[in-house]
């Protein structure tokens, strides 16, 4: 094989992490929405809210199961493909991963069983408590994983022990590591991204039901809740995104320069590119449209100060400019589009005419891939923009590989992942499609078994023809 272990391992990491990240943002965001929905049920006693919570729980469960399966791969992969990195960061990064396992995963997966299968097993309040715990687990999980990743971006609270091949980072101040310079901004921005995604996801399915004239009460209520959450999150995104970009300007100047394709520092205030095609070889931006001086104002809050360009960074430390620039710009434009869409939606909802605006509902039906793309591109910006470092300024990606692994092994596992993930994606789409077509259990009361042995009975009952899965809580009507 001509392709190196490095290229293949990076390719495999990109493939597996991007595939994995299709699922966690929906779990985080939808988990929060479930809490809101079930709280409204408890407060009002309106069975509409109960049907709504049950319906979205089914979707949540499908998504969660795939997230767990692809998440195990991520944890294994640090050791299998990036052993040198694991040795280097284990002391620091490990505390965060261990915290995630102990505080988040058990909480999520334990209470998920009650959330999905426990409707008739526990009291409504206990069930609501379980829903809150699942949402909290997803939230904890995001905290620790962002903490670990942020440490790679802006290392803090550590010192380097040993030299050369045996050098590694050791923790000196746990809280300085947790609150590394970028962690809180990045956490907020990631959570906002997850809420936008979940809101658009719910709006898409709800708009589809409204257009088809099905499950109208549930669809309208769901759409409204998601629209409010989506609008708030979309408005918050640029504000917190700006805070985060300022932090990047301060802590990772090479990344910022690549995000904005600033090749020369110059002496004048730096313009902001609205569009353009950066060319790293010629060190200029083709077909660029700019707003003069805006980047200086955004990055430093000082309209006069020129932004540090790539000319101040050794060429061997440049990140890939075009990919970072485009990922970042498309994400920002999508973010602005979400603001416009949700504000237009709120405007018509306020006037009470939203649900008659069929064209707008169709826009919401088809808008759902966009927040997925925006979330992915945000991470591409963060990770590609950090290159050539895996731990910024300390450890190069090329020096982080497993020494015991050869190219053919990685090639084999990439092929395996492509096959398995294609299959997994097919399952996910197939099951999701069925859940959506089936819709909520409207007006059907699921009989409650009264035998002493009924605990699994209800699980089986709810499982319908399916039975074997966390996600099977079928509508009995569909079972003829």
């Amino acid at each position, binding site marked *: 094989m001509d392709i190196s272990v490095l290229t293949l391992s990076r390719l495999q990491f990109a493939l597996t992490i991007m595939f994995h990240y299709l699922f966690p943002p929906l779990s985080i965001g939808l988990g929060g929405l479930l809490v809101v929905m079930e709280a409204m049920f408890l407060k009002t006693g309106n069975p509409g809210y109960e049907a709504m919570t049950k319906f979205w729980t089914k979707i949540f469960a499908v998504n969660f199961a795939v997230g*767990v399966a692809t998440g195990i791969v991520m944890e294994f992969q640090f050791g299998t493909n990036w052993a040198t990195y694991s040795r280097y960061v284990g002391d620091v990064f490990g505390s965060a991963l261990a915290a995630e396992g102990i505080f988040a995963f058990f909480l999520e997966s334990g209470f998920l069983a009650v959330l999905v299968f426990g409707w008739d097993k526990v009291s409504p309040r206990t069930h609501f408590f379980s829903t809150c715990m699942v949402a909290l687990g997803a939230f904890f999980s995001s905290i620790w994983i962002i903490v670990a990743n942020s440490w790679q971006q802006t290392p803090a609270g550590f010192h380097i022990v040993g030299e050369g091949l045996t050098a590694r980072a050791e923790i000196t101040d746990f809280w300085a590591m947790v609150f590394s310079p970028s962690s809180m901004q990045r956490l907020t921005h990631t959570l906002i991204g997850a809420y936008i995604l979940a809101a658009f996801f719910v709006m898409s399915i709800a708009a589809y039901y409204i257009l088809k004239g099905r499950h109208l009460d549930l669809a309208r209520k769901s759409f409204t809740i998601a629209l409010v959450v989506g609008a708030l999150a979309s408005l918050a995104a640029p504000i917190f995104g700006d805070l985060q970009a300022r932090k990047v300007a301060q802590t990772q100047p090479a990344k910022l320069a690549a995000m904005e394709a600033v090749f020369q520092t110059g002496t004048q205030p730096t313009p902001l590119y609205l569009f353009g095609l950066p060319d790293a070889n010629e060190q200029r931006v083709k077909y660029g449209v700019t707003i003069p001086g805006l980047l200086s104002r955004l990055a430093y809050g000082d309209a006069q100060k020129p932004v540090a360009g790539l000319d101040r960074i050794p060429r061997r430390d440049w990140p890939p400019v075009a990919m970072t620039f485009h990922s970042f710009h498309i994400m920002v434009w999508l973010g602005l589009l979400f603001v416009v869409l949700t504000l237009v939606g709120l405007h018509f909802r306020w006037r009470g005419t939203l649900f008659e605006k069929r064209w707008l509902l169709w826009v919401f039906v088809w808008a759902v891939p966009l927040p997925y793309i925006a979330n992915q591109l945000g991470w591409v910006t963060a990770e590609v923009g950090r290159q050539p470092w895996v731990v910024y300024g300390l450890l190069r990606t090329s020096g982080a590989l497993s020494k015991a692994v050869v190219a053919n092994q990685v090639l084999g596992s990439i092929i395996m992942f492509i096959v398995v993930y294609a299959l997994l994606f097919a399952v996910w789409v197939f099951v999701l499609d069925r859940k959506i077509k089936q819709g909520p259990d409207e007006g059907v009361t699921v009989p409650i078994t009264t035998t002493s042995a009924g605990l699994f009975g209800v699980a089986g009952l709810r499982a319908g023809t399916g039975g074997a899965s966390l996600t099977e809580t079928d509508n009995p009507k569909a079972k003829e």
Partner: protein
Amino acid sequence: MDLNILWFILLGVLLAGYAILDGFDLGVGIVHLAVKKDEERRILMNSIGPLWDGNEVWLVTFGGALFAAFPNAYATAFSGFYTAFMVLLFALIFRAVSMEFRSKHDSPAWRSFWDVSFCIASTVATLLFGVAVGNVMRGMPIGADMEFQGTFLGLLHPYCLLVGLFAVATFAMHGSIYLYLKTEGELQQRIREWMWRTFGFFLVLYIFTTIFTLVAMPLATHNFAEHPWVWIVVVLNVLAIANIPRAIHLRRPGYAFVSSCATIAALTFLFGVALFPHLIYSSLNPKWSLTVYSAASSHKTLAIMATMAALGLPFVLAYTSVVYWVFRGKVQLGKFSY
């Protein structure tokens, strides 16, 4: 007791928790094809339906804790077992997909395809766990730079394959006993028959593995001479194993299940005793072995993690127990199942 030893023990606890909990649901997968009727297969899958996902979290946490406490052992083992672990991931994902996919379509061919893949994936995953344990018991070709220097085929030594088969037999027995606990009527009587068979299979492999270990793995017994009290655990292990047929004979599935949990806990404990203080023994040069000291994170990290475990573990145990309590009792499929 220092923190390195504490974390060695805690990893053992996580591993035992994983082997006991995911052990029975892997075991259910291994014996899955023994029933033929669709409804009965669904009962089997439903018995682990709400629980397998949480059980797998023990593996995730074990991996995270190994990474954090002993990053060098994590890095060496995971990169050394590259191909084996990729196949393991494949099996674990396929297992989850089989459970999700199986009942979504009525065609018998479709269902039997996913049933077979559920069984194969469960068996392969268990076999690989056993092979990995066998390799760790035997020692691995680790160089002075802590890197694995062997090959994938080198991991398939007869001893390691024997331990792999032993793991399959253990989980098959454990899963059968769990099913005996969860089913009723005529199906339960048939499961009782397999319990005897899987127990026989387990007993034969237990004896073979023990003899092979005592004869050919001198490393595994060095701690027994220094710490004779470990023999108490060996005796308890034998008593637990002996109690399984007794409980089956008395038709007390609860006792049988507790005994098989105790057996797995004891085996994990003995695995730890055989290993200590090594995490990975170097078959090239004992000085290059990764020990609980040479592979460990700094004292500070181990202390932080110990605090987290002290804060988190009581909650984990509490709500794991609550969830198991909520889902206690026999499996029953509803009348509109189809």
